[in-house]
């Protein structure tokens, strides 16, 4: 059975009253939902909070889910919208800024390499953070979730052409920000 077929079967089971079907959906999608939120919000606590809120909304809305979109698209759309709301709120909060970014050290690797990766992580994080929220969302969905443009357009509620144009603009900014680290070698 395809992923979409499995998801729809879980939704139908939940509608019949099987609470375990909801738990199965949470277990299947909690990690990508958290990772999208984490990439967009740059903070573990906020990302966890938003991920839980996503699944609370899913629990509330599942009985009315009409399968017009794929379950994954629907879930990611809720995630992105909640992250955009949260980002809008946080932008007004003077206490939160780039300095509040948390990068957890990897449990593996030597200290020198870890420091280097951390520095690169900070640079990349700052470059992504500098993007407008919708551009950031599209970059996260494409680069880190590897979603096709068509699905990103459904998640973001815009035309596929808009996704292409937005990605183009976002990558222009990312290339400028990361230029010192790009050699431009042709293999």
């Amino acid at each position, binding site marked *: 059975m395809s992923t979409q077929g499995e998801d729809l079967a879980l939704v139908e089971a939940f509608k019949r009253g099987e609470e375990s079907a909801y738990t199965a959906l*949470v277990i299947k999608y*909690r*990690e990508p939902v*958290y*990772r999208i939120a*984490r990439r967009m919000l740059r903070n*573990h606590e906020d990302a*966890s*909070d938003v*991920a*839980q*809120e996503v*699944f*609370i909304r899913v*629990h*509330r809305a599942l009985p009315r889910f009409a399968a017009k979109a794929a379950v994954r698209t629907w879930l990611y759309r809720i995630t992105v919208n*909640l992250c955009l709301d*949260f980002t809008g*709120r946080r932008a007004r*909060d003077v206490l939160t800024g780039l300095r509040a970014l948390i*990068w*957890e050290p*990897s*449990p593996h690797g030597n200290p020198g390499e870890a420091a280097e*990766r951390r520095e*690169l*992580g900070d640079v*990349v*994080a700052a470059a*992504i953070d500098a993007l407008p929220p919708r551009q950031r969302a599209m*970059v996260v969905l*494409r*680069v*880190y979730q*590897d*979603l*096709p*443009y068509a699905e990103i357009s459904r998640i973001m509620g815009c035309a596929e052409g808009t996704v*292409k144009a937005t*990605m*183009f603009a976002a*990558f222009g900014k*990312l*290339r400028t920000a*990361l230029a010192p*680290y*790009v*050699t*431009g*070698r*042709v*293999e």
Partner: protein
Amino acid sequence: MERDVVSCKEARDLLLEVVSGTTPPDARRALWRHLDVCEDCRREAAALEETVVLLRAVPEPHLGDEHWARFMAGLDRRLESARAAPWARTPRWFRHPVHAWTTAAATVALVVVLGLTLSGRPWSRQAAEPEPNPLRGFATQSVVDALPAMDASLAVWKAGFGAPDVSYELTGGD
């Protein structure tokens, strides 16, 4: 039918999509064919690819079983409280807003204003200017003098000519 990329503009349009993630194989093949013969686009592709590699080089935080156990326990608690109290369904940042006092003061002010407006306090009516009578300009002295006669005529018209209880005598006017 196999797709074909002819111009550099088409190649650049396709480049970002191909470099940044999964793309249909025919699009990839078409782009590679163009890159084989175009050095400018090849250089552009290399720079874009390096940018994507840098973006993906940032480590994902390690999430252990302990994290997910806490996550599921927290989710269960929030679902329980959502079932217990409908207002608890609102997100945490809404339940504990940053500007709680400002919001409370604005709400109280709004309630007071609405209350005064809806209760129809006399000051609100006194403050209003009286509506000007649109006929005031036409009420000359001769019109005022003719009013009783017009009144009698109206009574006759209403009752019909020949009605016994209507006086035909004009009581005013010329």
